[in-house]
C-alpha cells in the first residue's frame, strides 16, 4: 500500500574507476534528492569491491536492514543472480540495472544499458568516417561479459567492412595507465593506424597522452565510450579534431532507476519489465545534453 514506508536498498560496485565513480555519484545524488522529497523513503547505499562482497551486502540489506525495495547494479550477471533472487524471495521489489540477471524471474524490473549499441556505434562511426577503409586498434576493458558484448558488437559491424582492419584488441582494464602503456606499444608496432577505439573514456585519456607524446599524425579518430564530462566537453568545444564523437552510456541511469523505483513503490506501483536507456552517438550537435559538470564522470 502507498502508506507503507519504503526502505530502498541500493547495491552498486565501489568507485574503482571513473565510470563507477559516476555511478556512485548519481546514486548518492538520488538519495539526497529523493529522501528530501519523500519523508517516508529511506535509501541505503552499499558499494562492493567484488561479486562476493556484493552478495554479502545483499544478504545484509535483506536480513538486517530489512529493505522492501532494491536497486542493484550487479558486478556480474551470473554470479549475482542467486543472491538477488534471495532478496526478492524475502519480499523486496527488485530493480536490476545495466547487467541483466541470467534468470529474469529474479528481478521485477530491468533498467538496461545498451552494451550492443556501445560497441556498434563507434564501429559504425569509424567505418563511415574512414569511408570503409583503414586500420583500427581497440582497447578493451576488464575481461567480463559486458566487455565481450561490446567487443562482439564492434566486430559484427566491422565484418560488413572488409577493408577496415582491426589490427589488435588488448585489455587495458578500464585504466588510464594501462591504456597509456598498451597504446605506446601499439604505436611502436603499427606504423599506420587510422582509428583508435578505447572502449571507455578513461582509457581514451591514457591513449591520447601516448599518441600525443609519440607525435603521430596518422591517427584520425580517437573514439572513447560512456561520455565522460571532459570528453563531452572536448567534443562540445571542438578542441581536438580527432575527437568528434562519443557514445553515451551515462552513469546517470542509476539515478533514474532509483527514482523510478522509489516513486513507483511509494505509490505501490510496478515498473515496466524492461526500460532500456539507449546509448546514442554524442557529437557536437547534441553534446550539451550529455554534459554534467558536477558529476565526477
Amino acid at each position, binding site marked *: 500500500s502507498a502508506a507503507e514506508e519504503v526502505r530502498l536498498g541500493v547495491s552498486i560496485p*565501489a*568507485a574503482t574507476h571513473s565510470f563507477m565513480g559516476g555511478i*556512485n555519484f548519481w546514486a*548518492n545524488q538520488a538519495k539526497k534528492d529523493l529522501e528530501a522529497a519523500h519523508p517516508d523513503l529511506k535509501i*541505503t*547505499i*552499499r*558499494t562492493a*569491491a*567484488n*561479486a*562476493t*562482497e556484493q*552478495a*554479502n*551486502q545483499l*544478504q*545484509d*540489506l535483506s*536480513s*538486517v*536492514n530489512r529493505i522492501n525495495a532494491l536497486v542493484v547494479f550487479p*558486478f*556480474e*550477471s*551470473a*554470479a*549475482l*543472480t*542467486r*543472491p538477488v533472487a534471495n532478496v526478492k524471495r524475502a519480499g523486496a521489489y527488485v530493480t536490476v540495472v545495466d547487467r541483466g540477471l*541470467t*534468470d529474469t524471474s529474479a528481478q521485477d524490473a530491468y533498467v538496461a544499458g545498451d552494451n550492443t549499441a556501445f560497441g556498434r556505434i563507434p564501429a559504425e562511426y569509424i567505418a563511415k568516417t574512414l569511408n570503409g577503409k583503414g586500420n583500427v586498434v581497440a582497447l578493451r576493458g*576488464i*575481461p*567480463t*561479459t559486458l*566487455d*565481450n558484448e561490446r567487443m562482439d558488437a564492434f566486430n559484427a559491424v566491422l565484418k560488413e567492412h572488409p577493408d577496415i582492419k582491426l589490427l589488435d584488441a588488448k585489455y587495458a582494464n578500464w585504466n588510464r595507465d594501462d591504456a597509456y602503456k598498451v597504446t605506446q606499444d601499439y604505436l611502436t608496432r603499427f606504423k599506420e593506424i587510422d582509428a583508435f577505439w578505447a572502449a571507455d573514456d578513461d582509457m581514451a585519456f591514457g591513449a591520447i597522452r601516448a599518441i600525443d607524446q609519440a607525435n603521430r599524425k596518422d591517427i584520425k579518430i580517437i573514439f572513447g565510450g560512456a561520455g565522460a564530462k571532459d570528453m563531452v566537453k572536448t567534443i562540445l568545444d571542438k578542441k581536438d579534431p580527432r575527437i568528434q564523437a562519443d557514445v553515451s552510456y551515462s552513469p546517470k541511469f542509476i539515478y533514474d532507476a532509483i527514482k523510478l523505483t522509489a516513486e513507483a513503490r511509494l505509490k505501490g506501483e510496478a515498473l515496466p519489465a524492461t526500460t532500456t536507456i539507449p546509448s546514442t552517438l554524442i557529437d557536437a550537435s547534441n553534446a550539451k545534453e550529455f554534459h554534467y559538470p558536477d558529476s565526477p564522470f
Partner: protein
Amino acid sequence: MSQPEIAAGAADERRETGTPLAEKLAGIGPVVGLIALCILGAVLNPDFASFDNALNVLTRTAFIGIIAVGMCFVIILGGIDLSVGSMAALIAGCVIMFINWASSHLGSPLLAVVAGAALSVVLGAVFGLIHGFLIAKGRIEPFIVTLGTLGIFRAYLTYFADGGALTLENELADIYAPVYYGNILGIPVPVVVFLLVAVVGAVLLNKTAFGRQVQAIGSNETVARYAAVDVERVKILTYMALGICVGIATLLYVPRLGSASPTTGLLWELEAIASVIVGGAALKGGQGSILGTVIGAVLLSVIANILNLTSLISVYLNAAVQGFVIIAVAFIQKGRR
C-alpha cells in the same frame, strides 16, 4: 635470522617454570579485539547481535576462513601463497565446466555435482602439489612461484570463460545449492565445514608429527634438516594442504554464486594472509595458531559486516575504517609478541 621476539620480548622472558601463563593470555589477544568489535557493532545496530546475522557472517567467512587455515600452515612453514584467489577462481571455473559437461554425459545430474565437488578438491591438491614441487625441489622463492601462478591461473580461467563468466546450468545449480544454502541442525553447511576444517587443521598442527615438522622448518630450516626432517616432503605436503583447503572453499563457493569469472576470488590472498597474521602468526614463519587464524578471519568479516549495517560515514571511506580497525586490533594485541 632476526629474532625480534627475543629482542622485543626480553622482558617477558621470565623465570617461569611451568606452563607460560603469559602465552596463554596472549592467545586471547585477538579474542579481545573481536569481542570489543562485537560490542561496538551491537551498539551501532541492534540487529548486529541477532543470531541470523551471526550465522550470515560466519557463513561468508567460511571461504576465506578455510583458505586461511591452509595459509596458516604455509605461513608457519615460512612460506607464502599469493595465488589462492586465482586458484579458487580457476578451480571454480573448471568445476562448473565439468559439472555442465558431466550432467549430460554421466546421466545423473546429482552424480555430476558430486563428481564436480570431488574434482574441486583434487584440483586444489594438484595445484598445491605443483607449488610445493617448484618451491621445495626447484628452490624458487614461494613469493615468485605463487606470483607467477597467480597470473597463470587467472589467465586460464579468463581463457576458458572467453573473457566472460562460466555459469552453472540452472537445474544443476539447484541441486548443488544446499551445499551452500543448506543447514545441519540449524547451522549452515559452510559454517559446519569451516569448523571441521579448523579442527582438523588444529589437530594436524598440534597433534601430529607433520605439524610439528612444519613448525620446525619455519622456525629454523637447517635445524629441521639436521634433525632428519624430510624438509622437501613436508614443504610439498604443506602447499598441498593449502591447495586442498582452497579446493574445499571453492566447493562451497560454487553453489553460492553458481558462476566463475575473471574477477572471482580477487584479493582473497590478501584476506587470507591478513587473517593469519591478525591471528598472531609472524610472516617469518615458525609461529601461528589455527584458533588465532579463525578468529582473525571472523574479525575481518565482522568489520565489513558492521560497516554494511551502519551508514556512519561516506561509502568511499569504508576501506579506510577497515584499515584503521585492522591496525588498531593489531596494536591492542601486540603485547602477545
